C-alpha cells in the first residue's frame, strides 16, 4: 500500500509544461481538473525519493525508495531502499492500482492485496493512497466547482472544490485545491473529513516547483495532518522522465528480484 502512495506522490510532483496555455476567463472547472489530472500523470517516470515523517511526539522516521511508472500511472513499481527494517519490500500496482501485489523479502512471499489496503497509512506517514488521487480518482470520484481565483504560495491559482459523488466510497467528503494557472499544478490541497464537510483533516503543500527537462516538478511536498498534529515530507532525490520502461519491470518476477 505504502508504495502506491509514494508513487502517487511522485506523480503529483510531475507537471507537464507542454500543457501551458493562456486560458480564457471562460475555462470551466471540469477543464481545469482534467488538465490537472493530465499533468500529474506523466507517461513514464523513474525516481528516487525520500519521505520524512515527523510524529506527534516529535520523532522522525525516514524512508527512501525507488519508483517506476508507466502509462500515466497505470503501472507502478516501488521498492524500498531504507530503512533497513523495510529494505527490499516492494509493491507492484497495475490497472491504476486495482491490482496490488506486495513482496516481503523476509518471507520471500508475494501476496495479492485487495484494493481496500489503499486505506492503510503508509508506514506511519500522513499519506494514504486515496489522498493523492492517482489515476483518474479526482475525475471519477468527485464533482468539481470553480470557486474563483486566488494567490497561493506566490502563484496565481484557480480555486477548485471537489465534492464526493454520491456513489463514491472515497475517504474524504470534499477537497479544496489551488491549481497554478500557468501549468495546472496543484500547489495546495485541503482534505476534509469523510462525514463533516467543514472539518479540515489534512493540508498538502508543494514546494520548490522546478523546471526539469521541460517538466515542472515539485521537488518537495509536505502533508500536514491537522488531527494528529504530524507532518510528512517527500523530497525527490532523483527523477527521470519519458524513459523507455520495459513491461517486464512491472511483473511479479521483477517484484521478487
Amino acid at each position, binding site marked *: 500500500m505504502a508504495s502506491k502512495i509514494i508513487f502517487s506522490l511522485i506523480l503529483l510532483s510531475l507537471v507537464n509544461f507542454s500543457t501551458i496555455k493562456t486560458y480564457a476567463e471562460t475555462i470551466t472547472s471540469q477543464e481545469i481538473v482534467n488538465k490537472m489530472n493530465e499533468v500529474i500523470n506523466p507517461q513514464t517516470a523513474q525516481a528516487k525519493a525520500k519521505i520524512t515523517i515527523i*510524529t506527534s*511526539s516529535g520523532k*522522525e522516521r525516514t524512508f527512501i525508495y525507488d519508483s517506476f511508472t508507466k502509462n500515466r500511472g497505470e503501472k507502478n513499481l516501488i521498492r524500498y531502499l531504507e*530503512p533497513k527494517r523495510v529494505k527490499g519490500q516492494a509493491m507492484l500496482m497495475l490497472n491504476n492500482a486495482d491490482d496490488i501485489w506486495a513482496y516481503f523479502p523476509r518471507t520471500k512471499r508475494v501476496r495479492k492485496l*485487495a484494493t*481496500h489496503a489503499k486505506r*492503510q497509512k503508509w508506514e506511519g506517514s500522513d499519506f494514504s493512497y486515496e489522498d493523492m488521487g492517482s489515476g483518474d480518482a479526482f475525475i471519477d470520484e468527485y464533482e468539481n466547482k470553480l470557486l474563483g481565483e486566488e494567490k497561493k504560495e506566490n502563484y496565481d491559482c484557480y480555486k477548485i472544490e471537489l465534492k464526493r459523488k454520491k456513489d463514491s466510497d472515497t475517504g474524504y467528503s470534499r477537497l479544496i485545491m489551488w491549481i497554478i494557472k500557468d501549468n495546472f499544478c496543484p500547489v495546495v490541497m485541503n482534505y476534509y473529513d469523510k462525514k463533516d464537510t467543514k472539518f479540515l483533516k489534512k493540508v498538502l503543500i508543494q514546494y520548490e516547483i522546478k523546471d526539469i527537462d521541460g517538466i515542472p516538478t515539485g521537488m518537495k511536498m509536505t502533508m500536514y495532518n491537522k488531527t494528529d498534529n504530524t507532518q510528512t515530507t517527500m523530497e525527490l532525490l532523483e527523477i527521470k522522465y519519458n524513459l523507455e520502461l520495459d513491461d517486464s519491470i512491472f511483473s511479479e518476477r521483477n517484484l521478487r528480484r
Partner: protein
Amino acid sequence: MKYRYVFYRCIKTFIIFLSLILLPLHLYASKLDIYGYFQPQLTDTSSNDDFYQLSSNKLRIDFKCEYSKSVTFGANYNFIQYSGKTQWNMLKYIPEIISNTVLANQIDSYDILYEDDIILDNAYIKLSFKSADITLGKQQISPGTGYAWNPTDVFNYKDLLDPTYEQPGHNAYRIDFPLKNKYSIVLIYTPESTLENSGKLMRIKGKLGHFDYSLIGIEKELLLTDYFTFDDTIRKRKILGGDFVGEFLGLGVWEEYAYNFIKDTDDFYESVTGIDYTFIGGTYVMCEYYRNTGGKDDYKKYDLNDWLQFITAQTKTISRNQIYASLTHPMTDLITAGTSVITSLNDGSLSLIPSFTYSLFENVDLSIFLNFNLGKKGTNYDRTLGNGGVARLQVFF
C-alpha cells in the same frame, strides 16, 4: 621432491594472499550487501503455580551479492543463544488427563531442549535467464495464500502467535518459468537420500480478472512419531490442491485447499477460507476458517499422539475446525495494537492473543504478544495449559 613441496606451499600461500586481497575488492565491486538484525527475546509462561522464563538472543546476518542482473547470491547465518529455562517437558503442556497415561519412568523422554546454535539458514544462487529463473541451494519456500494456516505448505510450521514470522530455508532446486504476463510454472525439488523419497512440487499460477490462482501438486514424505513407543513412521504423501486470492464485494478473499493422499492410511483434506477488510483510519480486520479432516471432531478423542505431534509441528492442528480472527489498529503513528482470537469450533475452546508493536527508534521495533487459553479442561485451548507472553526487540542493521 622438497623443492616441489616448497613450490606448492608458495603457490598456495600466494593464492590465499591474493584471495584475501582480491576478495574484499571483488565483493565491493560486485555490491555485496550485508544486513540483518539482532533480536533479544523473552518468553514467559505460567502454568498452574509455576512460572518459567526462556530468554534468547538471535543474531541474523544476511549477505546478498548481485554479480550481474543474471546472477544473485544470497545467504544468511543465524546465531542463537538461549538462557533461563532451556529444558521443557512437553507433558506439562498437554491436559493432565492425557499426560497421566505416561509411565513415571518415561516422563523424561518427553523433554525438549533449547540449545545454542549457529545455522546456515539460507545459501543460494539465483540464475536469471530470459525464459526462467533457477534458484539452487538452501532457500525459503512459502506456497499458499492462507495467513494462519497453509494447507499446501508441507515445508514449514507457522506459529499462531506470529504467523508472519520468517520461515527457515530448505535445501532445494527451484525453477520459475514465467509464461507471458498471466501465467507461470514453478518446479521445486528438495533432494533427500533417494530420488523416490525426495520432495517434488509443481505449481501453475495464473490470473483471472482481479484474482490470482494456482494449482499445485506435491509429493513429500510425511513423518509421524508414535509418542507412546517413540517409533517414527514415514509415509508417502501426495497432495493435489490449489489456491486463489482476490477481491469480492470490496472484501479481500482467499482460499487454499489441499487433498492429502497418504499411503497405507486414511486420506484427509485441509482447506482455508479467509476474508479481510481495511476501514478508513487504517483499522484492519481479517478472519480465516481452517478445516482439517485429519483433526478430530470430539475433544474427548484427543490422545497423546494428537497433542505431541501437534506440539512438535508434525501436524498443523488437533481439532478439525478452527477459526483465526484478528483486528489491528494504528493507535498512533508509531504504535499498532491488535488482538487475535483462535477458536476450535469442535470443542468451543478459545485462545486470545493481544499484541502490540512500537517503533521505538529508526530500525528498532518492540513487539509484545500475550497468550491466554480460555477453554475447558481437555480441549484444544485448555485454560490449565497456562498463559504466556513474548517480548521481542528487533534491531535492524
